[in-house]
C-alpha cells in the first residue's frame, strides 16, 4: 500500500500538483461580463456536481472552499503576458446543530436547509466587480478567463494527502477563456 501511495505521489509530482488532474465535475454554463460605471461586473453560472465522497465530507462537518478565479491577460510579444487576476473564496460548511448548510464569503454568510439550495447559490456568481476602469486601456485585445475549483490546500492535512492521491478530491472546471475588448461607448460614459 505504501508503494502504491509513493508511486501515485511521484506520479502526481511528475504531472504537477499545481494543476490537478482533470476531474471536470464543475461546468461553466453561462458567463457575461457587463460594463457599468465603475468598470466591469461578472455574472456566471456554474454547474457543480459533488461526488458522494465530498458530500459525505460536508455532512461530516468538513468545510469546503471553492475558489472562483478570474484572469485578464494581455499578450505581449516582447515580455511575459501582462495579467490581472481576481479571486473569490466561498466557504461551504454544514452546521450540525442547526442542520443548516452555510455559504460564507468573508464576514457575509447565508444559511440553507438543504445542500442542493446551498449549491445552487454557490454556483451563481452575480455582479462580481472584477475590473476597474483604470486597469484597462481602450482598443486593446484582452483575453479573459474564468474557472472555479475546490481549493484543496484549505482542507485539513489528511484530506490534502487524499487529494494528492485520489481524483475524487479534485474538483475543478477548465479555464474558460474568451477574447475581450473595451468598446468606445463605455469609455465615453465614464466621465459623467
Amino acid at each position: 500500500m505504501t508503494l502504491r501511495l509513493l508511486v501515485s505521489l511521484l506520479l502526481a509530482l511528475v504531472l504537477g500538483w499545481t494543476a490537478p488532474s482533470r476531474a471536470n465535475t464543475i461546468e461553466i454554463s453561462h458567463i457575461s461580463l457587463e460594463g457599468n460605471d465603475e468598470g466591469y461586473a461578472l455574472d456566471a453560472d456554474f454547474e457543480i456536481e459533488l461526488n458522494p465522497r465530498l458530500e459525505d465530507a460536508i455532512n461530516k462537518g468538513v468545510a469546503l472552499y471553492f475558489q472562483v478565479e478570474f484572469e485578464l491577460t494581455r499578450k505581449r510579444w516582447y515580455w511575459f503576458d501582462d495579467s490581472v487576476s481576481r479571486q473569490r473564496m466561498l466557504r461551504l460548511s454544514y452546521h450540525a446543530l442547526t442542520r443548516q448548510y452555510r455559504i460564507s464569503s468573508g464576514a457575509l454568510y447565508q444559511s440553507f436547509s438543504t445542500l442542493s439550495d446551498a449549491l445552487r447559490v454557490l454556483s451563481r456568481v452575480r455582479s462580481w466587480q472584477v475590473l476597474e476602469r483604470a486597469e484597462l486601456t481602450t482598443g486593446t485585445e484582452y483575453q479573459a478567463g474564468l474557472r472555479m475549483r475546490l481549493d484543496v490546500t484549505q482542507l485539513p492535512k489528511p484530506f490534502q494527502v487524499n487529494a494528492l492521491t485520489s481524483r475524487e478530491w479534485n474538483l475543478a472546471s477548465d479555464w474558460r477563456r474568451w477574447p475581450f475588448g473595451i468598446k468606445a461607448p463605455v469609455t465615453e460614459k465614464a466621465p459623467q
Partner: protein
Amino acid sequence: MKYVLIFSVALGAILLFLLAAASGNTALFSRHYALLLGLNAALATALLALIGYQLWVLTAKLRTRVFGSRLTLRFLLMFLPMVIVPGGLVYVVSLQFMAKSIESWFDVRVDNALEGGLNLGRTALDLLLTELNDKARHMALELSDKSPTQQVVLLNRLREQAGVDDALLLSSSGNVIASASKSVGKLLPDLPSAAIQRQARQSRAYSALEGAPDKRLSLRVLVPVAALSIAEDERLLQLLQPVPPTLARDAEAVQEVYRDYKELSLSRQGLKEIYILTLTLTLLLTLFSATALAFLLSARLSEPLALLAAGTQAVARGDYSRRAQVTSSDELGILTQSFNSMTEQLDDARSVAESHRAELETAKAYLENILANLSAGVLVFDEQLRLGTVNNGAGAILQEAFDGLKGRALADWPRLQPLARAIVEGFKQHGADTWQQQLELAERMLLMRGSVLPRASGGGYVVVFDDVTTLIQAQRATAWGEVARRLAHEIKNPLTPIQLSAERLQAKLANKLVPEDAATLNRATETIINQVAAMKGMVDDFGEYARTPAPNLVPLDLNALIREVLVLYEHAGALLRPELQPGLPRVMGDPTQLRQVLHNLLQNAQDALAGSAGPRIEVETERAGNQACLRISDNGCGFPEAIMMRVFEPYVTTKPKGTGLGLAIVKKIIDEHNGAVRVENLPGRGASVSILLPLQRESAKAA
C-alpha cells in the same frame, strides 16, 4: 562526491524535520505539505540515483579488477546490513504502532456518546423552539381580536408576560407596525427576510434556530395574526429569543467535538497515509544516505590499500620513483611508510647493481675490443672441446666464417680438420700444460699455442695462433741474403788467382809444348777462364742481391720510366702492348731500382715466351686508391703450381739457366718501396705479375 553526500544528508535532515513538523498539527507548514512531500521524494530519488552511480562505478572497477575494489565491496556488504536491519526494524515497528494507535482513537461508544450529545442539544433547542412557538401562537390569539392601535400597546405587555426578548408586529407589506424589546438601547429591530415572511404566511408558521459564526444561537418564530375582517390585512408576529448562554455554549461545544471527531474519522485513511509517507520517506532518506555513506567509507577504507597496491605494481614494473602518500598515523600509515622506505632501499640497491653491471660491461667490451682487434686468432673451447668464442683474427687468418662450427666438438668439424686434429692432439699430449706448435696449413704456417683455462673461471681451453708465413719468408730471405753475401765474398776471392794462374800457365807453357799439347792446354785454360768468368758473374749476382742499397725514394713518373725501358725490348721478338693510364700521379720510388725491377720482369716474360706462337706482353698501369698498380702479363708458359708460394725465394726457378734471383730481387726492392707484389697464373695461358707502389702524398706534392 563527499560534499554532495554531506549536502544531501543535511538537506534531507532539514526536509525531514519540516515534513515531520508539517505532519504534526502546526499550521505553519501545512500549506506547503505537498511541496515538502515532493521535495523529500525528489531528494530520495536523487540519493537513489547517487547510489546507482556509486554502484555502477564499483561494478566497473570490479570488472576491470581495480585493486581494492573487492575489499570495498566486502566493506560495503558488511556495512549494509548494519544500516538496513535496524532501519527496517524500526520502520516496521513504527508502522504497526502507528496503525494501532490511530485505530484506537476511534471507538463506537465515543461515536454514540457524541451522537447522543448532539441529539440532546438539538432536542433541547427544539423544545425551546416549540415553547416559543406556543407563546407566539398564544400572543397571536390575544392580538387577533384587538384593533391595530391596541395591538401596539398590548404587544409589549404580552412580550413581558411571555418573557420573550424581542417581539415585532409586521404588516402584510412587511412594514413594522409595532416593536417591543427587552433591551432599551436597541433601536433597530431584527427584521425577517422576505423569504421567511413568505414562508410564514404560506405555512402559517415559521420557526427556526438561527446561528451566525460570531453570534449566539437565537430562536426565531413567526406566526400570522388573524385579521378581524377580510378588509384588514393579515399581520405577522415575530418573536426573537436568544438561546440561554450555557445551553448554547454546551451545544456548540458538543457540536464542535462531534465535527472534529467526524472529520478525524473521515480522514483516518489520510492521516495514516501522512504518517506512512513521512515514515517511509524518513526510512528511505536514512537508508539511502547511509548506503551512500557506506560506499564512501568503504572506498575510503580501501583507498590506502589500493595506493599501496599501485606502489607495489610500480615496483614490480621497475619504477621505484612512486611513493605512496602517508595520510594517516594508524597501522596503515606505518605500513605505507615502511613500504616507502623499502622501495627506497630497493632503489638504492638497484642503482648500485646497475653501476656495477655498467662497469663490468665496459670492462667486457674493452676486452672484447682488444680481442677483436688482435691480429692473432683466438679460439676458446669448453671442456668437451666444443668451440665457444672466435675472434675476428682467427677468421681472417683461416679465411673461415666459422658458420656451423660454433658449439660443435672439434672432432666433428666438417672443415679445418688438420687444425682440429692438431688442437686435439696438442691438448691430449700436453694435458694441463701450455703447448706450442707450428702447423703448416694450406701453404700457411701457423704458430699455435694452447692453454687450459683455470677451472675457477669456468674451465675450457684456449688456442691462440698466428700466421707466421711472412715471418718465415722474411727469415728465409735474410738467410739467403747472408748466404749470398758469404758466397760472394768467399768464392770471389779465389776466383782471381785461379784465372790469373790459368792465364799464366797458358803464357808460360804454350810455347814449350808440342802443338797438340799446346792446343789441349789452350782449350783447358780457355775453359777455366770462361768458367771462372761465369762464376764471377754468378757471384756478382749474389753480391748484388745481398747488397742492394736502400732505395732513394723520389717522386717519379712511372709511365715515363716504363716507356724508357720498353724501348729496349721493342725488337726482342715479343709483341709489346703498353696500356698506360694517362695522368697517373707520381709514385715514390728509386728510378734505378725500379728500372731493375722492370728489366727483371720483362726478361722473365720473354723467357717464358720462348718457343711459343704469337708471343705477347702487356704492360698496364692504373691507379688503385692511393697506390699505382703496374701489371706485366704474358701469354707464356706461366708458373708451375708447385712453386707458386715460394716464387719469390732465391734459387727458386724453372729456367734451365738462371740464378733464381730475379723475382727475389724484385720482391726485395718492392718491399723496400713499401709496395706489394703478387704473382698469378692467368686463366687461359700465361702469367701476370702485379706491383703496387705508393703514390706521392698530396701534401708532399703540394710542397
